[in-house]
């Protein structure tokens, strides 16, 4: 026979527990926000002094200790562009297949999902070695922006596919049934209902993918390379911001100041791209709902 507590005590215990949970969650939010702020402010204060217009528009000098990062920014954006041009269509198509077309073959779907989850956990250096042997050597692209972008695409695809699939599957089944009842074609259902409704989730997948691509160093040292020249084509080797920051921090004595400034630029680019992606997806959602 369990002990009987008076009603007031039970009520008190409940409110105490509820408050505790609210407290703990608020404290963790505070902690995480503080850590994030610390990181950003640290980079901001150490990097802002070196941030001039000329830093963004001139080439690096003296192994990156002096001069700017113009070619590095261009290479970064080109590599990201190649990666996204491959990732977005291929990732969306695979996500659609997994969520909409594998109902009859759940075993195959499970296998694909397992493989994707495994791929998502593979260390990036493995993708780097894979990219170096397939894109650089086998396909003869050499150290190039194209090799780097394609390697990144292989690395980012599993994330984008899984995020895309989850958001497509979270669209209520009634929408599909209703559309079928009205005689919509599969194409109209996809472009008119499923993709727009799943857009917020799809955009999160995209943003996470962009973040992972911009942060990558290990895989790119072996594929897009280390060259600081302004790229003239997608077949030129080019150094990304992350590789540049890594080199300044780890290999170049006295390169820290410019490393911090480059990190600040990288964060700024990331924020700008993410905001852009969010605005774009919001506009698509908006258009459909009117």
């Amino acid at each position, binding site marked *: 026979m369990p002990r009987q507590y008076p009603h007031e005590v039970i009520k008190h215990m409940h409110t105490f527990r509820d408050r505790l949970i609210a407290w703990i969650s608020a404290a963790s939010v505070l902690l995480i926000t503080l850590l994030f702020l610390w990181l950003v402010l640290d980079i901001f204060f150490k990097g802002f002094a070196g941030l001039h217009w000329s830093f963004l528009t001139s080439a690096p000098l003296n192994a990156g200790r002096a001069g700017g990062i113009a070619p590095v920014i261009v290479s970064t954006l080109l590599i990201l562009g190649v990666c996204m041009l491959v990732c977005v269509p291929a990732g969306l198509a695979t996500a659609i297949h997994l969520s909409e077309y594998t109902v009859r073959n759940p075993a195959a779907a499970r296998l694909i999902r397992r493989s994707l989850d495994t791929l998502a956990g593979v260390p990036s250096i493995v993708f780097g070695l894979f990219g170096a042997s397939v894109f650089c050597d086998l396909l003869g692209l050499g150290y190039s922006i194209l090799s780097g972008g394609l390697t990144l695409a292989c690395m980012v695809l599993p994330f984008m596919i899984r995020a895309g699939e989850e958001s497509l599957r979270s669209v209520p089944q009634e929408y599909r049934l209703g559309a079928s009842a009205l005689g919509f074609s599969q194409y109209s259902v996809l472009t008119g209902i499923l993709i727009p409704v799943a857009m917020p989730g799809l955009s999160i997948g995209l943003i996470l993918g962009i973040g992972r691509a911009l942060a990558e160093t290990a895989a790119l040292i072996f594929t897009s390379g*280390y060259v600081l020249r302004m790229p003239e084509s997608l077949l030129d080797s080019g150094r990304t911001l992350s590789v540049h920051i890594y080199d300044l921090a780890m290999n170049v004595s006295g390169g820290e100041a410019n490393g911090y400034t480059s990190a600040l630029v990288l964060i700024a680019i990331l924020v700008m791209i993410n905001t852009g992606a969010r605005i774009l997806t919001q506009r698509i959602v908006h258009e459909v709902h009117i």
Partner: protein
Amino acid sequence: MLRLIFCLNLVWLLAGCDAADHAREKLVITGSSTIAPLIADIARRFESQHAEYQVDVQSGGSSRGIADVRRGVAHIGMVSRGPDSDEQDLQWYALARDGIGMIIHQQNTIAALNAAQIADIFTGRIMDWQTLGGPAQKITVVNKAEGRSTLEVFLKFFALKNSTIKPQVIIGENQQGIKTVAGNIGAIGYVSIGSAEVAIAEGTAIKLLPMNGVAASVDNVRNGSFPIARTLHLITGAKLTAAARIFLDFALSPAVHDLIEAQYFVPLQR
């Protein structure tokens, strides 16, 4: 969707067109991450004087430079040590000198260690600074990762085997070693003297220990009196392309001595 496919095609076309425009001869140099920033600067000066060549410098480690030259992927390799007995198939060109100094935390009261003491520390026979007359503080041994040239130079000088070393921390690049020792009051490690001197000038909490009574300084590496030093090399296969020959002549000439000194290495007098 059609628009997207069109855009994709456009990109491939652009990539293709540009590739056809490349009339300049490309020279690929890969290898040691220690030398890569220096060679990248030398390459830029070389390109400004020889518009007909394009020099691509890639980093990745000395072992990689050797492998790439042997496979014919790179025209020139960068190796931050001297040749081993099984590497005589390659041609070695001395580029610059780099001294390797022992570093400890600035607040450590130890002023000097002899070679036997350092060997004892790295093999785990001495575990506390107190044993050597220092503070009561456990020693943190910071060793370099397998494949790093600094490790090979260190092992050779102290006649140690890497398997007998008992490290608490294993690091890659010099800057990582400096940061590790500066952040750990009981740590001891070894890095390129040039980069340690810069870090000390910037106020990093480390100090360089003398070896056999000779101060660990770039000056003493230059005059040859500091005993632990390595020679940075460029390597090629048995046959040289014309472009590689011209680049080597340039990189080994006094015209780049200012660049070598700017990276805190010591140019060789020829």
